[in-house]
């Protein structure tokens, strides 16, 4: 199962009622996990590079940058 936080939107993603789930560049936590594989096939989302994820994890481990 894919995880939304590992991917970011390339276009605005929304529910069928047009409620925004992710804007371009945002991560996909709010996107239903079941939708992620097909969104990947249709290039509406892309994987976040591992280096970028590692950096994010480091900052998360250390707490907020301005703490």
């Amino acid at each position, binding site marked *: 199962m894919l995880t939304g936080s590992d991917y970011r939107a390339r*276009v605005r993603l*929304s529910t*069928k009622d047009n409620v925004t*789930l992710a804007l371009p560049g945002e991560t996909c936590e709010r996107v*239903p996990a*079941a*939708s992620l594989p*097909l969104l990947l096939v*249709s290039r*509406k989302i892309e994987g976040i590079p591992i280096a970028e994820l590692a950096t994010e994890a480091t900052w998360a481990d250390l707490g907020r940058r301005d703490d």
Partner: protein
Amino acid sequence: MAGKIGSASFGVLLVDGYDFLASKLKAFTHKATATQERSDGLGDTIETMTPTGLLKLEITQAGAFFDDTTNQTHTLLATLANLAVSRLLCAAFAGNTIGKPFLGASGLYTHEYDVLGQVGQLTKANVTYHVSGTLDRGVILNQSVAKTVDWNTKTDGASVDYTTDTSQRAIPITSNTQASPTVITTPVPHGLTSADIILITGNASSNAAINGERVATVISTTTFSIPVNCGVAGGTGGTFVRSNTSNGGAGYQMVSALSGFSGFVGKIRDSADDITYGDLLTFTNVTAAPAAERLTNVADTVVDRYLSFNGDVTGAGSITVFVGFARL
């Protein structure tokens, strides 16, 4: 006569947002021609023609009655300078209904208007419309009816499903192999590229069902694999249609009436699973009618199975919008 289309089905004819549909219509024709250019030269013994890649669309309304309603044919004809410029045209010959086919044309526009006589306030005429340029064939995403609030064709219960599009060819399946992944053979070129999604129906005998939506990996022009383990037994038969396309598309939006609203933004969205949608095309904010716009995606854009149209209005009023989308 189910499935037959007659002139009574001719539901929409819009040119740059002007509503050109006759008040009463006796006959309607449309003809698309691929234009060619002479390419023989001095010394050649035969005349040769080369396709230019451009299409010419000709639409006629014969024995039709017209009146002088605002934003209809007389309004446009009032200015002679309007008769030979680049315009957008949309026609729907199978009814003004979401999911039905439409023709969109963009290019140099002219029309001939032969008055046959007048009956009271109506003018009877034979009219021929010519557009030389780009011709798109697609489906109606939003029928031309008045709206007074924001709307969404998906939540209205009318999203368009590409797998039920009658213009699609169903490709027969000869067999699928006993293997993992199983390899499908077709008797005719399948026309797929890797990562295309297809919908298979009617296949039998495989130990694991291959029917349903699958992602194809192309091996040759008549073979491709899908990620299903048929290691115990292969199968035969069935057909498939495409669930998505990967060459972008062209969207047409025609606003034929607008009153009260200070703005309107239309948006076409697509979805592979009918759950999560992505923005496909967003039209420019419209503040007055008539208005028309044609937008295209970049060439390699994937257009998914389900399409819906979203209309966002600002203020209070009424608007009539027609939207069609053609996969390229």
